[in-house]
C-alpha cells in the first residue's frame, strides 16, 4: 500500500504529510474564521468562503502534483523567462492594480473575476532565479561581480513590491539574503549589505516618525508610520486594537484551546482568516495547536536540509531551501505578529490562510520542492542500481 502511494506521491513522504496537514488545518481555521465575513458579505452563506478556499486549494494541489513530476532542472531555465514576466506584471500591477486597503497589491485577471497577487508569483520565480544564478556561479562565488549582479535583480523585484506591500518586500528581501548566504556569497559583502540595510531601515523609521504625513494621502507612507508608531506603543489606534485582540485570542486559548469553531475573537479581529489566522488557531486549538504549526514548518526546513545533504547539485539544494525558507519565514512572521513580538503586517501563513491565487503559488512552491526531492531520490536509486548492473 505505502509502496503504491509512494509510486503516486513521489518524493519525500514527510513533505507530503506536511502539505496535507497544513491544508487540513487551513480549511478548519478558515471555515471558522470566515463566519463574520460570510455574514456581512455573503448574507450568512457560511459555506461560501469555505468552498472557495477549498476550491483554490484543490487547484493548487493539482498544480503541486504536476510540478512534482517535472525534473527540477527544467525550472532553472523556466525561471529566466518567468522572472521577467513577473517583473512586467509587477509594473502593470503598480499602474493599474485594484485597491485593497489602500494598497494596489493585486492584479485583476480579466474575465475570471478573480485577482492575483503578483508579488506571490514574483517571489517564486525570483527564488528560482537566484538558485540558478548562484549554482551557475559557484566557481567564482566569492567575487563582488556575482554579488552585485544578483543583488541588482533582487533589488528590482523588491523595489517593485515595496511601494505597495512593504512587509512582503522585506520578507522577500530577507529570504533572498539568506539564500545568498547559504549560496556561499562572500559573508563580507553580506555583512556590508546587512549593515547598510539596518542603517537604511533605521533612518527610514526615524524619518517616518518625524515626518509630517499630512500631504501623502495617496501613498502607503502614513500607514507605515502608523504601524511603526503602534508597535512602539505610541498610538492607541486601530493597530494596537488589532494586536490587543490578537493577544486576547492567544491568551484565552489556553493549552488545549476552545475547540474548533469556538473562537470569539474572530469577531473582533480584522481579517481573522488571513493576517490573524494564527491567533484564531491558537484560540481554538490552544498552545498545542500553535506548537503543531510551528513544528510543521520547522520539520519542513529540516526535511529540506535532508535534500541538501543528498543533492548532487547546488541548484536543487538552493531551490528547495530557498522556497522552504521563503514560506517558513512568512509563516513565522505571521505567528510573531499574532503573539505580539512583531508589528502588525499583512502576511499570511502559506496553505493555511485563506487566499486565492496565493494558495496556488504556494502549492507550486511545494511542488517544486517535491520535484527536487523526487529527482534526487530517483537518481540515487539509479546510482545504486548501476554498480549492481556493472558487476
Amino acid at each position, binding site marked *: 500500500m505505502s509502496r503504491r502511494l509512494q509510486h503516486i506521491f513521489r518524493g519525500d513522504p514527510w513533505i507530503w504529510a506536511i502539505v496535507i496537514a497544513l491544508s487540513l488545518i487551513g480549511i478548519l481555521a478558515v471555515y471558522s474564521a470566515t463566519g463574520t465575513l460570510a455574514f456581512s458579505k455573503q448574507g450568512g452563506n457560511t459555506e461560501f468562503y469555505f468552498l472557495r478556499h477549498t476550491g483554490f486549494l484543490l487547484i493548487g494541489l493539482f498544480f503541486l502534483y504536476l510540478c512534482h513530476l517535472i525534473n527540477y532542472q527544467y525550472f532553472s531555465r523556466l525561471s529566466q523567462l518567468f522572472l521577467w514576466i513577473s517583473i512586467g506584471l509587477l509594473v502593470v500591477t503598480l499602474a493599474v492594480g485594484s485597491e485593497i486597503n489602500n494598497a494596489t497589491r493585486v492584479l485583476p485577471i480579466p474575465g475570471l473575476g478573480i485577482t492575483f497577487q503578483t508579488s506571490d508569483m514574483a517571489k517564486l520565480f525570483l527564488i528560482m532565479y537566484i538558485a540558478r544564478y548562484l549554482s551557475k556561479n559557484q566557481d567564482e562565488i566569492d567575487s563582488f561581480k556575482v554579488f552585485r549582479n544578483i543583488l541588482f535583480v533582487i533589488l528590482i523585484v523588491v523595489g517593485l513590491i515595496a511601494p505597495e506591500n512593504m512587509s512582503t518586500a522585506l520578507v522577500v528581501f530577507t529570504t533572498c539574503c539568506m539564500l545568498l548566504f547559504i549560496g556561499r556569497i562572500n559573508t563580507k559583502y553580506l555583512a556590508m549589505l546587512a549593515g547598510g540595510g539596518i542603517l537604511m531601515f533605521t533612518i527610514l523609521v526615524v524619518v517616518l516618525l518625524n515626518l509630517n504625513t499630512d500631504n501623502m494621502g495617496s501613498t502607503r507612507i502614513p500607514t507605515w508610520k502608523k504601524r511603526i508608531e503602534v508597535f512602539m506603543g505610541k498610538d492607541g489606534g486601530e493597530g494596537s486594537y488589532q494586536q490587543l485582540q490578537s493577544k486576547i485570542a492567544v491568551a484565552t486559548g489556553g493549552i488545549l484551546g476552545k475547540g474548533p469553531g469556538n473562537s470569539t475573537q474572530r469577531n473582533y479581529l480584522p481579517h481573522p482568516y488571513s493576517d490573524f489566522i494564527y491567533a484564531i488557531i491558537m484560540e481554538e486549538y490552544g498552545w498545542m495547536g500553535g506548537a503543531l504549526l510551528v513544528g510543521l514548518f520547522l520539520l519542513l526546513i529540516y526535511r529540506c536540509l535532508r535534500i541538501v545533504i543528498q543533492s548532487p547539485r547546488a541548484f536543487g539544494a538552493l531551490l528547495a531551501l530557498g522556497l522552504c525558507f521563503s514560506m517558513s519565514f512568512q509563516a513565522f512572521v505571521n505567528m510573531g505578529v499574532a503573539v505580539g*513580538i512583531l508589528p502588525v503586517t499583512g502576511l499570511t501563513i502559506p496553505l493555511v490562510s485563506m487566499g486565492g491565487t496565493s494558495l496556488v503559488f504556494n502549492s507550486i512552491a511545494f511542488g517544486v520542492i517535491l520535484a527536487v526531492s523526487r529527482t534526487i531520490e530517483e537518481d540515487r536509486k539509479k546510482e545504486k542500481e548501476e554498480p549492481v548492473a556493472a558487476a
Partner: protein
Amino acid sequence: MSTTRKKSKAAAKPKVNTRRAILVRAYLVFGLALVFGVAVLVSAARLQLGSDKQFSEALKQKNTRVVDVRAVRGNIYADDGSLLATSIPRYDLVFDAWSDGIASMPGNIYKRRMDSLCLFMAAQFPDKTLETWKSYFANLRKNKVRYVVVRKDLGFDVVKRMKTWPLIDLGKFKGGFWYEEHGKRLYFMGDLARRTIGYIKDSVAIGLEGAFDSLLRGRDGKRMEQRMPGNTWRPVQVGNYKDPLNGYDIVTTLDVNLQDVAQNALNKVLADNEADHGCAVVMEVSTGAIKAMANLKRGKDGTYGETQNFAVDEFSEPGSTFKLLATLALLEDGLAKPTDSVDINWGEVKMFGETMKDAHKQPKRFFTLQESFEQSSNVGISRMVLKHYGKQPGKLVDHALRLGLNLKPEFDIRSSGQPRIKTPKSPDWSNTTLPWMSIGYETKVSPMQILMMYNAVANNGRMMKPYMVKEIRKEGLTISKIEPRVLDEKIAGEETIAALRKMMEGVVDHGTAKNLKSEDFLIAGKTGTAKISKGKKYEEGSYKASFVGYFPADKPQYTVIVVINEPRKGAYYGGLVAGPVFRDIAEKLYATSTAILPTLGTNPLPNAPYVLKGNLGMTKVVLNSLGISSQADSGQTGVTGWIEARKKEYSVALSPLSVSPKQVPDVRGMGLRDAIQLLENRRVAVTYDGYGRITQQSLPPGTALQDGLKIHLTLEPF
C-alpha cells in the same frame, strides 16, 4: 576511463566542499528558525500562563462591547391610511477627526474642504458662527478625537442636503463624517385615542402598541463598539454582527374623524355632568370592525384624559342594557311573546324580601313584555323572568354562556379584568340572583361585551368578533389582511331578532330614549341606568348611565355603546346622559357615510359654495366639475373675462367685473393668483401676507397706473 574518472573526481571535489559549505550555512539558518519558533511559542505561553492578566476576558469586555442597534418601529395607520403613530428616523452627525482618510489627506486639501464645510455648517446651524465652527473642528483635529457627535436629531431632509457638503460627501472612511440613525416615536392624534393606540414605556405595554408589539418592534441588530479615550464608544467594523430588521406596520380600522367626534362628544358630556369616567365605542355592524374607541377619566384638575381602557377593561354590572339577554331568552325559548302582559304594580314589588322597583313610578299596573323593555321596567322584566325561569334558572344562564358573556372576548387590545356570570352552581347564587341578573346586576361584563351582543342583534343574529387591526404591512406591501370573523352565525331565531329590533326601535320612538329621536334616520337601542356598587353596598347617588344602539334602524350600519360613570349633576338616566354622545356620533356618521345616505332615498343637491372673485373661465370649469349650476348675468362678462360671484341657494350667479387697463383694479375678494395676474399685467409690483382671499389692498381701486407702483395685499382665510 581513468582520466575521465579523475576529471569527474576533480570536478566533484569542489562540489562536495560546496555542499558542505551550503549545509553548514543552511543549518545556521535552520537554527535561527528554531530560535524564532521557540520564541513564538514562549511568547504564547507567557500570554496564556504569565502574569499578563490584562488579556483576560474581563479586559476584553472593558474595552469592547456589543450593543443593540434599534430596529425602526412600525407605523400605526388609521383606516384611511393616515398615520396614527410612526417612528421617524433621526440622524446624529458623527465625526472621526483622525479617520484614515483624514489622517492621510494632504493638509492644504483638508483645510480647503474643512473651511468650505464650515461655511455650510454656519449657514445651516447659525448657533455657531463660522469662526466657532472652524475652531471647533480644528480642536477636534488637534486632539485627534476619534468619535464625537457633532449634531443631534437631524431630519432626513437636512441629512440629504448635507450629503453633498465637502468632506461629508467623501463618506465615513475618507471624510470622517457619518450618520447614526435612531427612531423617535411620534403620535399624530395628541390625546385622541391615546389609550387605544397605546404606548410602550418601561415594560408597560398599552393598547395597540402593546398588543402588536411583537410585530411593530421588529428585531434589533447588534454591533460591536470599542472604547475610546474619554469614555466614548466607537463602532468597530469587524464583520458586522446582525443588521436590525425593521418592524411591521399595522393598519387599524379606526376612523380618525369619528374618533375625534366620539372623543369630543364624550368629553363634553362627561364635563357637563362632572362624571368620573366614561367610554364610547363605535362598531361596524357587518364586520365587527371598531371605528372609534374613546375612553376618558376625570383628572384631579377636572380635565379628562385617556388613562385606562374602560371599554375593554371595566367589567362591572351593566344595568338595564343587559335586559336584552333576558328578553332574548324569553322569546327564543318560546316562553313569552312581546305582547304577553305582566303585573308591574306601578313599578314596585317585593321579591324574596328585597324591593324591586323601576326608575320611577309607572303610569300603569300592567305592562306587556314590549312595554317593559321600552320603558326599561325592572319589575316587568324580572317578574317575567322569575315566572318562566324561576324553576329552571340554568336555562337563562345558558343563554349568557352561549353568547360567551362569561369569557373575556378575544380582541386586539388585551384586557386585565374578567367577566363574571353566576350560575345556579355558584356558591353565591341566591333567590334574588335570577331576577336581579335579568336586569343587569350580580353580573360583571365589559362595555365591549354588551356592544358585541347588541351588534349581533343589529346584524340579524350574527355575532362578529371585534377587531381593530385589518392589515399588516411591511414597507408598503401587504403581509396579511385580517378578515372579519363570525363568532356565532345565529345567536337567536329570526323572529326573536325581529321582535328584539322592534322593541329597540320602540325605546327610541316612545320609550326611555325618545330624546334621541331623529328626523333624519331611525335609531334603535336601549338605555341603561345602573346603581354602582362599591364593594357590597350600592352607593346612593352613584350611577352608571349608558346607551347602546345601532342605526339606521332599518338597515343597521353602526352599533355604538356609550357609558358614563358617576355623573354628579342631577341627571343620571342613560337616555339623558349617555344619549347625546350617541347622537353626536350618529349625526357625524350620517353626514359622512355614503353607506347611510342612499338609504334615505334622497339625493340632495350640493349646497353652493362661496366663490371668489376671479377669472370667468376658470370659475366655470370648477363649478361645472362640482355639478353646480351657474348663471352669468349678461353677455358683458365676456368683455373683461373677470367676474364677481353671488351665491344663491343651489347655484351661483356670476356678474361681470369692470377692470380698466389704466387703473388699479379692485382685487378684494379674489384669490392671490388671479390678483397677481391682474396687477402684474398692469406693471404693479405685488407683495402680500397671509393666505386665503384678499381682504385689503394698499392702493385704492381706481388709482391711475404709472411706472414703479407697488401694492401690498393682505389675505385672510375664510
